[in-house]
């Protein structure tokens, strides 16, 4: 698929004369390793921050877009309740997917869209800025624990982060259970904890393992593995989903 998109993009690029750095698109990202021909050297060593931690800053895009987690995970261990909900959503062609109405997507599919996300690693907070629907998450890294009691569950939950040697580990709980994990309709509940493990393998590649632990909807924890590629010479673009959402009116079983 990447090849096909690459080909399509190539056709476009050769067919349509590009303007010079319209908005942020095409402006060369400064201070990144490049090969002699000016291309980004994706296999250069992973950078470190001033305080010696691995540096995850940058714009990242899944190497393979996934909208149905069954295409990325061998077996998803749905519980009887999880299966009931999933089957119903399948039978109705996912017409009730909140994200189709511009409400938040679940964290797994959001990481795997064809739109990138940006990691901004600051002291005490790492922000994840998703281009899709112009959404953000704050991952607190100031040493606090997760809240013991959640009196106001949230679409995106509450996230803390820490370093496990060179892997950034995000733990998130306090979900409200409204988001679908993917467009196929894999459910979530308020019992869910998501653990994300990000490791920047080299300059241009970051691996992620995302562990879903939701004993209401699934019988055991299960993992999604993905790879992200650093996106250079572009930046986040505005994506206001509510602008012109025409699709939901046409949803049919």
């Amino acid at each position: 698929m990447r090849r096909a998109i690459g080909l399509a993009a190539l056709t476009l690029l050769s067919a349509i004369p590009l303007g010079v750095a319209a908005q942020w698109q095409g402006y060369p990202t400064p201070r990144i390793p490049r090969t002699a021909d000016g291309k980004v050297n994706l296999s250069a060593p992973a950078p470190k921050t001033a305080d010696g931690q691995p540096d995850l800053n940058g714009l990242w895009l899944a190497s393979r877009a996934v909208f149905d987690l069954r295409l990325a995970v061998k077996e998803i261990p749905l519980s009887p309740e999880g299966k009931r909900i999933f089957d119903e959503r399948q039978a109705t062609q996912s017409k009730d997917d909140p994200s189709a109405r511009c409400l938040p997507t679940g964290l797994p599919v959001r990481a795997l869209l064809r739109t990138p996300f940006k990691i901004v690693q600051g002291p005490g907070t790492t922000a994840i800025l998703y281009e899709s629907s112009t959404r953000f998450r704050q991952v607190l890294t100031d040493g606090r624990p997760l809240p013991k009691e959640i009196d106001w569950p949230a679409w995106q939950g509450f996230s803390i982060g820490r370093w496990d040697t060179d892997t950034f580990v995000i733990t998130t709980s306090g979900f409200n259970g409204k988001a679908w994990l993917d467009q196929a309709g894999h459910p979530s509940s308020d019992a869910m904890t998501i653990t994300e493990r990000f490791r920047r393998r080299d300059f241009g590649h970051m691996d992620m393992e995302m562990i879903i632990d939701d004993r209401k909807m699934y019988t055991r924890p299960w993992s999604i593995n993905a790879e992200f590629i650093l996106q250079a010479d572009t930046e986040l673009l505005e994506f206001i989903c509510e602008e012109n959402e025409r699709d939901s009116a046409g949803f049919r079983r």
Partner: protein
Amino acid sequence: MDKLLSALVAVALSTAVVAGHHSFAAEYNANDQVTLVGTITKVEWTNPHTWFFIDVKGPEGQVVNWAIEGGAPTVLYREGWKPTSLKVGDQVTVTIALAKDKSRKQGNAYLVKLPDGRCVFAGSSGPGGAATDNCTPGRR
């Protein structure tokens, strides 16, 4: 089906699912495709998806306005589209997956062929959305 359409459908069916912010299958039938030739009457360069509208002349001369859905504008933009890439008055050839609701004259675009023969990927969210560059047979 003419040769062009066969080629397009073959391309569409051989490639993988691409993208979309919503369930493609809730709205469109990937196996129900047509190729339309029409004149652009309106372009909406908008989130979450782009749209354009074309007047298509039927065999009896009657004109029907079709709504054509394309990819997310940020995705298309990075692939070289501009908000002005399609203009009102352009004659285009598009291959679309038809809406399930047949009362809607609506489709999800795979490929758009411009008057000068250039083919552009429309960023469809459906199966086969990842078009290749052989939409003009024989031209690579």
